[in-house]
Protein backbone atom coordinates (compact mmCIF):
# COMPACT_ATOMS: atom_id res chain seq x y z
CA UNK A 1 0.00 0.00 0.00
CA UNK A 2 1.22 3.49 -0.83
CA UNK A 3 0.21 6.36 1.45
CA UNK A 4 0.91 9.96 0.64
CA UNK A 5 0.46 12.26 3.59
CA UNK A 6 0.11 15.97 3.13
CA UNK A 7 3.04 16.55 0.76
CA UNK A 8 4.17 19.93 -0.48
CA UNK A 9 6.48 20.58 -3.40
CA UNK A 10 7.53 23.73 -5.16
CA UNK A 11 9.92 24.41 -8.04
CA UNK A 12 11.62 27.82 -8.25
CA UNK A 13 8.92 29.39 -6.07
CA UNK A 14 6.01 27.81 -8.01
CA UNK A 15 3.88 25.58 -5.79
CA UNK A 16 3.09 22.33 -7.61
CA UNK A 17 1.83 20.14 -4.78
CA UNK A 18 0.06 22.01 -2.00
CA UNK A 19 -0.81 19.47 0.67
CA UNK A 20 -1.56 16.29 -1.27
CA UNK A 21 -2.80 13.23 0.60
CA UNK A 22 -3.71 10.01 -1.17
CA UNK A 23 -3.89 6.27 -0.44
CA UNK A 24 -3.26 3.65 -3.09
CA UNK A 25 -4.79 0.31 -2.11
CA UNK A 26 -3.30 -3.10 -2.80
CA UNK A 27 -4.30 -4.61 -6.13
CA UNK A 28 -6.26 -1.63 -7.44
CA UNK A 29 -5.71 0.46 -10.55
CA UNK A 30 -5.76 4.10 -9.56
CA UNK A 31 -5.82 6.82 -12.18
CA UNK A 32 -4.38 10.20 -11.27
CA UNK A 33 -6.07 12.70 -13.53
CA UNK A 34 -5.72 16.41 -14.03
CA UNK A 35 -4.75 19.09 -16.51
CA UNK A 36 -1.26 19.28 -18.05
CA UNK A 37 1.11 20.85 -15.55
CA UNK A 38 -1.17 20.09 -12.60
CA UNK A 39 1.53 18.03 -10.88
CA UNK A 40 0.40 14.49 -11.73
CA UNK A 41 3.84 13.28 -12.86
CA UNK A 42 5.48 15.13 -9.96
CA UNK A 43 3.19 13.27 -7.57
CA UNK A 44 4.04 9.96 -9.25
CA UNK A 45 7.78 10.64 -8.99
CA UNK A 46 7.34 11.18 -5.25
CA UNK A 47 5.98 7.63 -4.93
CA UNK A 48 9.34 6.12 -5.91
CA UNK A 49 11.49 8.80 -4.35
CA UNK A 50 12.69 10.29 -7.64
CA UNK A 51 11.57 13.57 -6.07
CA UNK A 52 11.51 14.40 -2.37
CA UNK A 53 8.71 16.49 -0.90
CA UNK A 54 9.49 19.84 0.72
CA UNK A 55 7.16 18.67 3.53
CA UNK A 56 5.01 15.60 4.16
CA UNK A 57 5.61 11.87 3.95
CA UNK A 58 5.33 9.08 1.40
CA UNK A 59 4.89 5.57 2.82
CA UNK A 60 5.44 2.47 0.74
CA UNK A 61 4.31 -0.66 2.57
CA UNK A 62 4.60 1.27 5.84
CA UNK A 63 8.10 2.67 5.20
CA UNK A 64 8.61 6.43 4.95
CA UNK A 65 10.78 6.44 1.83
CA UNK A 66 12.19 9.89 2.55
CA UNK A 67 13.44 8.87 5.99
CA UNK A 68 15.58 5.92 4.86
CA UNK A 69 19.04 5.61 3.32
CA UNK A 70 19.59 5.68 -0.44
CA UNK A 71 20.55 2.00 -0.36
CA UNK A 72 17.28 1.10 1.37
CA UNK A 73 15.32 3.29 -1.03
CA UNK A 74 16.88 1.44 -3.96
CA UNK A 75 15.70 -1.87 -2.47
CA UNK A 76 12.16 -0.51 -2.19
CA UNK A 77 12.30 0.76 -5.77
CA UNK A 78 12.83 -2.81 -6.96
CA UNK A 79 9.16 -3.41 -6.09
CA UNK A 80 8.22 -0.90 -8.78
CA UNK A 81 8.01 -1.02 -12.53
CA UNK A 82 7.72 2.35 -14.20
CA UNK A 83 6.53 3.16 -17.70
CA UNK A 84 7.83 6.65 -18.48
CA UNK A 85 6.09 9.04 -20.83
CA UNK A 86 8.48 8.55 -23.74
CA UNK A 87 9.30 4.96 -22.81
CA UNK A 88 12.82 5.89 -21.65
CA UNK A 89 14.29 2.86 -23.41
CA UNK A 90 18.08 2.81 -23.41
CA UNK A 91 19.18 4.00 -26.88
CA UNK A 92 22.40 2.03 -26.77
CA UNK A 93 20.61 -1.33 -26.44
CA UNK A 94 18.18 -3.25 -28.63
CA UNK A 95 14.70 -4.15 -27.34
CA UNK A 96 15.82 -7.55 -26.07
CA UNK A 97 18.67 -6.08 -24.04
CA UNK A 98 16.41 -3.34 -22.70
CA UNK A 99 14.01 -5.91 -21.29
CA UNK A 100 16.88 -8.14 -20.16
CA UNK A 101 18.64 -5.25 -18.40
CA UNK A 102 16.86 -5.47 -15.00
CA UNK A 103 17.08 -9.26 -15.11
CA UNK A 104 20.84 -9.18 -15.76
CA UNK A 105 21.36 -6.49 -13.14
CA UNK A 106 19.25 -7.78 -10.27
CA UNK A 107 18.95 -11.54 -10.70
CA UNK A 108 21.42 -14.37 -10.99
CA UNK A 109 19.58 -16.05 -13.86
CA UNK A 110 21.52 -17.67 -16.68
CA UNK A 111 21.41 -16.14 -20.17
CA UNK A 112 19.04 -18.87 -21.40
CA UNK A 113 16.67 -18.24 -18.47
CA UNK A 114 16.85 -14.51 -19.16
CA UNK A 115 16.14 -15.08 -22.86
CA UNK A 116 13.06 -17.10 -21.95
CA UNK A 117 11.86 -14.44 -19.51
CA UNK A 118 12.42 -11.64 -22.04
CA UNK A 119 10.42 -13.55 -24.66
CA UNK A 120 7.58 -14.03 -22.15
CA UNK A 121 7.54 -10.30 -21.34
CA UNK A 122 7.64 -9.28 -25.00
CA UNK A 123 4.84 -11.76 -25.74
CA UNK A 124 2.78 -10.23 -22.91
CA UNK A 125 2.95 -6.85 -24.65
CA UNK A 126 2.23 -8.58 -27.97
CA UNK A 127 5.59 -7.77 -29.54
CA UNK A 128 7.35 -11.14 -29.62
CA UNK A 129 9.55 -10.34 -32.63
CA UNK A 130 11.03 -6.93 -31.86
CA UNK A 131 13.95 -8.19 -29.74
CA UNK A 132 16.71 -7.31 -32.23
CA UNK A 133 15.32 -3.85 -33.01
CA UNK A 134 16.84 -0.75 -31.42
CA UNK A 135 14.46 1.91 -29.99
CA UNK A 136 15.02 4.21 -32.99
CA UNK A 137 13.49 1.54 -35.25
CA UNK A 138 10.28 1.32 -33.20
CA UNK A 139 7.13 3.44 -33.43
CA UNK A 140 5.98 5.47 -30.41
CA UNK A 141 3.43 2.84 -29.41
CA UNK A 142 5.88 -0.04 -29.83
CA UNK A 143 8.46 1.81 -27.74
CA UNK A 144 5.95 2.16 -24.92
CA UNK A 145 5.07 -1.52 -25.13
CA UNK A 146 8.72 -2.59 -25.01
CA UNK A 147 9.19 -0.21 -22.06
CA UNK A 148 6.20 -1.88 -20.44
CA UNK A 149 7.80 -5.28 -21.01
CA UNK A 150 10.93 -3.96 -19.27
CA UNK A 151 8.83 -2.57 -16.42
CA UNK A 152 7.25 -5.95 -15.72
CA UNK A 153 10.42 -8.02 -16.18
CA UNK A 154 11.07 -8.29 -12.44
CA UNK A 155 7.37 -8.91 -11.70
CA UNK A 156 6.96 -5.76 -9.63
CA UNK A 157 4.35 -5.26 -6.96
CA UNK A 158 3.52 -1.79 -8.25
CA UNK A 159 3.47 -0.49 -11.81
CA UNK A 160 3.47 3.26 -12.42
CA UNK A 161 2.36 4.54 -15.81
CA UNK A 162 3.21 8.12 -16.75
CA UNK A 163 0.86 9.25 -19.53
CA UNK A 164 0.85 5.80 -21.18
CA UNK A 165 -1.33 6.88 -24.11
CA UNK A 166 -0.13 10.43 -24.73
CA UNK A 167 1.01 11.08 -28.28
CA UNK A 168 -0.57 7.87 -29.60
CA UNK A 169 -3.39 7.46 -32.09
CA UNK A 170 -6.74 6.24 -30.66
CA UNK A 171 -6.28 2.68 -31.88
CA UNK A 172 -2.80 2.33 -30.37
CA UNK A 173 -4.03 4.04 -27.19
CA UNK A 174 -6.75 1.44 -26.99
CA UNK A 175 -4.18 -1.35 -27.41
CA UNK A 176 -2.13 0.10 -24.54
CA UNK A 177 -5.26 0.35 -22.37
CA UNK A 178 -6.13 -3.28 -23.05
CA UNK A 179 -2.55 -4.27 -22.20
CA UNK A 180 -2.58 -2.33 -18.92
CA UNK A 181 -5.91 -3.86 -17.94
CA UNK A 182 -4.71 -7.32 -18.93
CA UNK A 183 -1.42 -7.00 -17.03
CA UNK A 184 -3.19 -5.72 -13.92
CA UNK A 185 -5.42 -8.79 -13.95
CA UNK A 186 -2.76 -11.35 -14.90
CA UNK A 187 0.04 -10.13 -12.67
CA UNK A 188 -2.20 -8.96 -9.80
CA UNK A 189 -0.27 -5.76 -9.40
CA UNK A 190 -1.19 -2.38 -7.98
CA UNK A 191 -1.22 0.10 -10.85
CA UNK A 192 -1.05 3.87 -10.74
CA UNK A 193 -1.82 5.54 -14.04
CA UNK A 194 -1.07 9.22 -14.52
CA UNK A 195 -3.13 10.47 -17.42
CA UNK A 196 -5.44 13.14 -18.76
CA UNK A 197 -7.03 10.71 -21.19
CA UNK A 198 -10.52 10.04 -19.78
CA UNK A 199 -11.09 7.20 -22.22
CA UNK A 200 -8.18 5.36 -20.58
CA UNK A 201 -9.44 6.16 -17.11
CA UNK A 202 -12.90 4.81 -17.80
CA UNK A 203 -11.61 1.63 -19.39
CA UNK A 204 -8.80 0.64 -17.01
CA UNK A 205 -9.15 2.30 -13.59
CA UNK A 206 -10.91 1.12 -10.45
CA UNK A 207 -10.59 4.54 -8.83
CA UNK A 208 -9.59 8.02 -9.91
CA UNK A 209 -7.97 10.91 -8.08
CA UNK A 210 -8.42 14.36 -9.63
CA UNK A 211 -5.58 16.76 -8.92
CA UNK A 212 -6.40 20.44 -9.20
CA UNK A 213 -4.64 23.56 -7.89
CA UNK A 214 -1.94 21.41 -6.30
CA UNK A 215 -4.41 19.33 -4.24
CA UNK A 216 -6.40 16.15 -4.60
CA UNK A 217 -9.67 17.85 -5.44
CA UNK A 218 -11.71 14.69 -5.82
CA UNK A 219 -11.13 10.97 -5.32
CA UNK A 220 -13.52 8.08 -5.80
CA UNK A 221 -14.45 5.01 -7.79
CA UNK A 222 -15.27 5.16 -11.48
CA UNK A 223 -18.95 4.68 -10.60
CA UNK A 224 -18.75 7.70 -8.31
CA UNK A 225 -16.95 9.62 -11.04
CA UNK A 226 -19.92 9.07 -13.34
CA UNK A 227 -22.31 10.40 -10.71
CA UNK A 228 -20.19 13.25 -9.43
CA UNK A 229 -21.75 16.69 -9.53
CA UNK A 230 -18.44 18.43 -8.75
CA UNK A 231 -18.27 21.29 -11.22
CA UNK A 232 -14.47 21.37 -11.55
CA UNK A 233 -14.29 17.63 -12.14
CA UNK A 234 -17.16 17.71 -14.63
CA UNK A 235 -15.49 20.59 -16.42
CA UNK A 236 -12.30 18.56 -16.78
CA UNK A 237 -14.14 15.48 -17.97
CA UNK A 238 -16.26 17.49 -20.42
CA UNK A 239 -13.10 19.02 -21.84
CA UNK A 240 -12.05 15.45 -22.62
CA UNK A 241 -15.24 15.10 -24.67
CA UNK A 242 -16.67 12.56 -22.29
CA UNK A 243 -19.76 13.79 -20.59
CA UNK A 244 -19.88 11.84 -17.36
CA UNK A 245 -23.53 10.83 -17.71
CA UNK A 246 -23.14 9.62 -21.33
CA UNK A 247 -21.78 6.21 -20.54
CA UNK A 248 -24.56 5.62 -18.01
CA UNK A 249 -27.45 6.33 -20.38
Amino acid at each position, binding site marked *: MIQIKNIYKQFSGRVVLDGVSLDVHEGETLAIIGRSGSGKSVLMKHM*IGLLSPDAGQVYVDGTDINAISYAELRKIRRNFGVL*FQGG*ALFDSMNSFDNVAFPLRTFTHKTESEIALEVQTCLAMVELPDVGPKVPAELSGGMRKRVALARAIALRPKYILYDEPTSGLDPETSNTIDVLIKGLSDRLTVTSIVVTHDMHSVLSIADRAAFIHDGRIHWVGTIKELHRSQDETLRGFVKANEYYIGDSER
Partner: protein
Amino acid sequence: MLLFRYLIYEPLELLGRYGQLLFSAFLTLGDVRSYWKNMIHQMVSIGVDSLPIIALAAGFSGMVTTVQTAYQLTSPLIPKYIIGGIVVPTMILELAAVVTGFILAGRVGARIAAEIGTMRVTEQIDALESMGLNSTGYLIVPRILAGILMFPCLYLVAAFVGIGGGAGVGHLMGVISVSEFMEGARLFFNPFDPVFGVIKSVVFGFTITSISCFVGYRTVGGAEGVGRSTTQAAVYSCVFLLVADLVLAITLL
Protein backbone atom coordinates in the same frame (compact mmCIF):
# COMPACT_ATOMS: atom_id res chain seq x y z
CA MET B 1 25.72 41.12 -3.51
CA LEU B 2 25.48 40.02 -7.13
CA LEU B 3 29.27 39.83 -7.29
CA PHE B 4 29.31 37.60 -4.17
CA ARG B 5 26.68 35.37 -5.74
CA TYR B 6 28.48 34.91 -9.08
CA LEU B 7 32.06 34.80 -7.81
CA ILE B 8 31.73 32.91 -4.56
CA TYR B 9 28.33 31.38 -3.81
CA GLU B 10 27.57 29.74 -7.19
CA PRO B 11 31.08 28.36 -7.86
CA LEU B 12 31.16 26.94 -4.33
CA GLU B 13 27.72 25.44 -4.74
CA LEU B 14 28.78 23.84 -8.04
CA LEU B 15 31.93 22.49 -6.43
CA GLY B 16 29.84 21.01 -3.62
CA ARG B 17 27.45 19.36 -6.06
CA TYR B 18 30.37 18.04 -8.12
CA GLY B 19 31.88 16.50 -4.98
CA GLN B 20 28.53 15.08 -3.91
CA LEU B 21 27.97 13.47 -7.32
CA LEU B 22 31.42 11.90 -7.39
CA PHE B 23 31.06 10.67 -3.82
CA SER B 24 27.72 9.08 -4.63
CA ALA B 25 29.18 7.51 -7.78
CA PHE B 26 32.29 6.09 -6.12
CA LEU B 27 30.26 4.50 -3.34
CA THR B 28 29.53 1.81 -5.95
CA LEU B 29 33.20 1.30 -6.85
CA GLY B 30 33.21 -2.14 -5.23
CA ASP B 31 30.21 -3.30 -7.26
CA VAL B 32 32.34 -4.16 -10.31
CA ARG B 33 29.65 -6.50 -11.69
CA SER B 34 27.32 -3.58 -12.36
CA TYR B 35 29.71 -1.59 -14.51
CA TRP B 36 32.59 -3.67 -15.89
CA LYS B 37 30.96 -4.30 -19.28
CA ASN B 38 30.16 -0.62 -19.62
CA MET B 39 33.74 0.20 -18.61
CA ILE B 40 35.22 -2.01 -21.36
CA HIS B 41 32.92 -0.29 -23.86
CA GLN B 42 34.03 3.13 -22.60
CA MET B 43 37.70 2.12 -22.72
CA VAL B 44 37.30 1.25 -26.39
CA SER B 45 35.40 4.44 -27.08
CA ILE B 46 37.73 6.75 -25.14
CA GLY B 47 41.00 4.97 -25.85
CA VAL B 48 41.06 2.85 -28.99
CA ASP B 49 38.75 5.07 -31.04
CA SER B 50 40.80 8.17 -30.14
CA LEU B 51 44.13 6.66 -31.24
CA PRO B 52 44.19 7.91 -34.86
CA ILE B 53 43.44 11.56 -34.04
CA ILE B 54 45.83 11.54 -31.06
CA ALA B 55 48.63 10.04 -33.16
CA LEU B 56 47.99 12.55 -35.93
CA ALA B 57 48.00 15.56 -33.58
CA ALA B 58 51.01 14.38 -31.58
CA GLY B 59 52.97 13.52 -34.74
CA PHE B 60 52.44 16.99 -36.17
CA SER B 61 53.24 18.63 -32.81
CA GLY B 62 56.57 16.79 -32.71
CA MET B 63 57.36 17.76 -36.29
CA VAL B 64 56.50 21.43 -35.79
CA THR B 65 58.47 21.61 -32.54
CA THR B 66 61.55 20.18 -34.29
CA VAL B 67 61.28 22.57 -37.24
CA GLN B 68 60.76 25.60 -35.01
CA THR B 69 63.55 24.64 -32.61
CA ALA B 70 65.93 24.21 -35.55
CA TYR B 71 64.79 27.58 -36.89
CA GLN B 72 65.64 29.29 -33.59
CA LEU B 73 69.02 27.60 -33.08
CA THR B 74 70.97 29.50 -35.69
CA SER B 75 74.29 29.76 -33.88
CA PRO B 76 76.97 27.38 -35.24
CA LEU B 77 78.31 27.15 -31.66
CA ILE B 78 75.26 25.19 -30.49
CA PRO B 79 75.47 21.51 -31.40
CA LYS B 80 72.60 20.14 -33.43
CA TYR B 81 71.78 17.37 -30.95
CA ILE B 82 70.40 20.14 -28.70
CA ILE B 83 67.32 20.00 -30.95
CA GLY B 84 66.65 16.46 -29.72
CA GLY B 85 67.42 17.62 -26.18
CA ILE B 86 64.69 20.24 -26.45
CA VAL B 87 62.04 18.43 -28.51
CA VAL B 88 62.00 15.18 -26.53
CA PRO B 89 61.55 16.66 -23.02
CA THR B 90 59.01 19.12 -24.43
CA MET B 91 56.99 16.25 -25.84
CA ILE B 92 57.31 14.12 -22.71
CA LEU B 93 56.70 16.87 -20.18
CA GLU B 94 54.09 18.98 -21.88
CA LEU B 95 52.99 18.53 -25.44
CA ALA B 96 52.02 14.84 -25.48
CA ALA B 97 49.80 15.21 -22.41
CA VAL B 98 48.33 18.60 -23.27
CA VAL B 99 47.65 17.84 -26.93
CA THR B 100 46.02 14.55 -25.89
CA GLY B 101 44.05 16.39 -23.20
CA PHE B 102 42.74 19.11 -25.49
CA ILE B 103 41.72 16.69 -28.20
CA LEU B 104 39.99 14.42 -25.73
CA ALA B 105 38.27 17.35 -24.00
CA GLY B 106 36.59 18.03 -27.33
CA ARG B 107 36.13 14.49 -28.52
CA VAL B 108 35.47 12.53 -25.34
CA GLY B 109 34.21 15.30 -23.03
CA ALA B 110 31.58 16.49 -25.48
CA ARG B 111 30.47 12.93 -26.25
CA ILE B 112 30.12 12.01 -22.57
CA ALA B 113 28.09 15.15 -21.82
CA ALA B 114 25.87 14.58 -24.85
CA GLU B 115 25.26 10.91 -23.97
CA ILE B 116 24.47 11.49 -20.31
CA GLY B 117 22.59 14.71 -21.05
CA THR B 118 20.36 12.92 -23.57
CA MET B 119 19.74 10.16 -21.05
CA ARG B 120 18.75 12.82 -18.52
CA VAL B 121 16.26 14.65 -20.74
CA THR B 122 14.70 11.45 -22.09
CA GLU B 123 14.19 10.11 -18.55
CA GLN B 124 16.59 7.19 -19.09
CA ILE B 125 18.41 8.19 -15.90
CA ASP B 126 15.08 8.23 -14.04
CA ALA B 127 14.43 4.78 -15.50
CA LEU B 128 17.74 3.48 -14.11
CA GLU B 129 16.97 5.00 -10.71
CA SER B 130 13.41 3.66 -10.65
CA MET B 131 14.76 0.14 -11.18
CA GLY B 132 16.75 0.49 -7.98
CA LEU B 133 20.11 1.14 -9.62
CA ASN B 134 22.53 3.85 -8.51
CA SER B 135 22.60 5.74 -11.82
CA THR B 136 25.68 7.74 -10.88
CA GLY B 137 27.61 4.56 -10.23
CA TYR B 138 26.37 2.92 -13.41
CA LEU B 139 27.01 5.89 -15.70
CA ILE B 140 29.83 7.86 -14.13
CA VAL B 141 32.19 5.31 -12.57
CA PRO B 142 32.93 3.35 -15.78
CA ARG B 143 33.56 6.55 -17.74
CA ILE B 144 35.94 8.03 -15.16
CA LEU B 145 37.78 4.73 -14.69
CA ALA B 146 38.07 4.31 -18.47
CA GLY B 147 39.44 7.87 -18.68
CA ILE B 148 41.97 7.30 -15.90
CA LEU B 149 43.13 4.01 -17.48
CA MET B 150 43.17 5.05 -21.13
CA PHE B 151 44.60 8.58 -20.94
CA PRO B 152 48.07 7.39 -19.84
CA CYS B 153 48.08 4.88 -22.71
CA LEU B 154 47.14 7.60 -25.17
CA TYR B 155 49.76 9.86 -23.63
CA LEU B 156 52.47 7.25 -24.16
CA VAL B 157 51.38 6.76 -27.78
CA ALA B 158 51.36 10.55 -28.27
CA ALA B 159 54.83 10.90 -26.76
CA PHE B 160 56.33 8.14 -28.93
CA VAL B 161 54.64 9.32 -32.12
CA GLY B 162 55.55 12.96 -31.38
CA ILE B 163 59.20 12.10 -30.80
CA GLY B 164 59.21 9.87 -33.87
CA GLY B 165 57.62 12.62 -35.95
CA GLY B 166 60.15 15.16 -34.71
CA ALA B 167 63.12 12.92 -35.40
CA GLY B 168 61.70 11.92 -38.79
CA VAL B 169 61.05 15.43 -40.06
CA GLY B 170 64.46 16.64 -38.82
CA HIS B 171 66.11 13.82 -40.76
CA LEU B 172 64.02 14.33 -43.92
CA MET B 173 64.69 18.08 -43.94
CA GLY B 174 68.39 17.46 -43.45
CA VAL B 175 68.43 19.50 -40.24
CA ILE B 176 69.52 16.72 -37.88
CA SER B 177 70.08 13.01 -38.22
CA VAL B 178 68.05 10.57 -36.20
CA SER B 179 71.14 9.44 -34.28
CA GLU B 180 72.04 13.04 -33.36
CA PHE B 181 68.43 13.68 -32.36
CA MET B 182 68.40 10.64 -30.07
CA GLU B 183 71.80 11.51 -28.65
CA GLY B 184 70.40 14.89 -27.53
CA ALA B 185 67.36 13.16 -26.13
CA ARG B 186 69.53 10.77 -24.11
CA LEU B 187 71.76 13.56 -22.79
CA PHE B 188 68.86 15.61 -21.46
CA PHE B 189 66.71 12.70 -20.36
CA ASN B 190 65.41 12.88 -16.81
CA PRO B 191 63.75 9.63 -15.62
CA PHE B 192 61.13 11.62 -13.72
CA ASP B 193 59.88 13.33 -16.90
CA PRO B 194 57.81 10.38 -18.23
CA VAL B 195 56.57 9.67 -14.69
CA PHE B 196 55.40 13.28 -14.49
CA GLY B 197 53.74 12.92 -17.90
CA VAL B 198 51.88 9.79 -16.81
CA ILE B 199 50.74 11.48 -13.55
CA LYS B 200 49.57 14.43 -15.59
CA SER B 201 47.65 12.26 -18.02
CA VAL B 202 45.91 10.44 -15.15
CA VAL B 203 44.86 13.80 -13.67
CA PHE B 204 43.72 15.03 -17.09
CA GLY B 205 41.77 11.80 -17.63
CA PHE B 206 39.97 12.25 -14.33
CA THR B 207 39.39 15.98 -14.87
CA ILE B 208 37.91 15.68 -18.36
CA THR B 209 35.69 12.67 -17.72
CA SER B 210 34.43 13.77 -14.29
CA ILE B 211 33.61 17.32 -15.40
CA SER B 212 31.85 16.06 -18.51
CA CYS B 213 29.83 13.52 -16.52
CA PHE B 214 28.87 16.23 -14.02
CA VAL B 215 27.77 18.66 -16.73
CA GLY B 216 25.85 15.94 -18.60
CA TYR B 217 24.15 14.71 -15.44
CA ARG B 218 22.83 18.20 -14.66
CA THR B 219 21.36 18.75 -18.13
CA VAL B 220 17.94 20.38 -18.24
CA GLY B 221 15.78 21.59 -21.12
CA GLY B 222 15.61 19.08 -23.97
CA ALA B 223 17.75 19.20 -27.10
CA GLU B 224 18.86 22.78 -26.43
CA GLY B 225 19.99 21.76 -22.96
CA VAL B 226 21.99 18.85 -24.39
CA GLY B 227 23.68 21.23 -26.85
CA ARG B 228 24.52 23.63 -24.03
CA SER B 229 25.94 20.82 -21.87
CA THR B 230 28.07 19.53 -24.74
CA THR B 231 29.67 22.94 -25.24
CA GLN B 232 30.09 23.51 -21.51
CA ALA B 233 31.74 20.12 -21.06
CA ALA B 234 34.36 20.86 -23.73
CA VAL B 235 35.03 24.41 -22.48
CA TYR B 236 35.15 23.57 -18.75
CA SER B 237 37.34 20.53 -19.43
CA CYS B 238 39.86 22.67 -21.35
CA VAL B 239 39.91 25.39 -18.68
CA PHE B 240 40.38 22.97 -15.78
CA LEU B 241 42.94 21.02 -17.80
CA LEU B 242 45.07 24.19 -18.04
CA VAL B 243 44.61 24.87 -14.33
CA ALA B 244 45.57 21.29 -13.46
CA ASP B 245 48.59 21.55 -15.79
CA LEU B 246 49.90 24.59 -13.94
CA VAL B 247 49.18 23.19 -10.47
CA LEU B 248 51.00 19.94 -11.31
CA ALA B 249 53.98 21.79 -12.79
CA ILE B 250 54.28 23.99 -9.69
CA THR B 251 53.87 21.16 -7.20
CA LEU B 252 55.76 18.30 -8.86
CA LEU B 253 58.61 19.91 -10.84
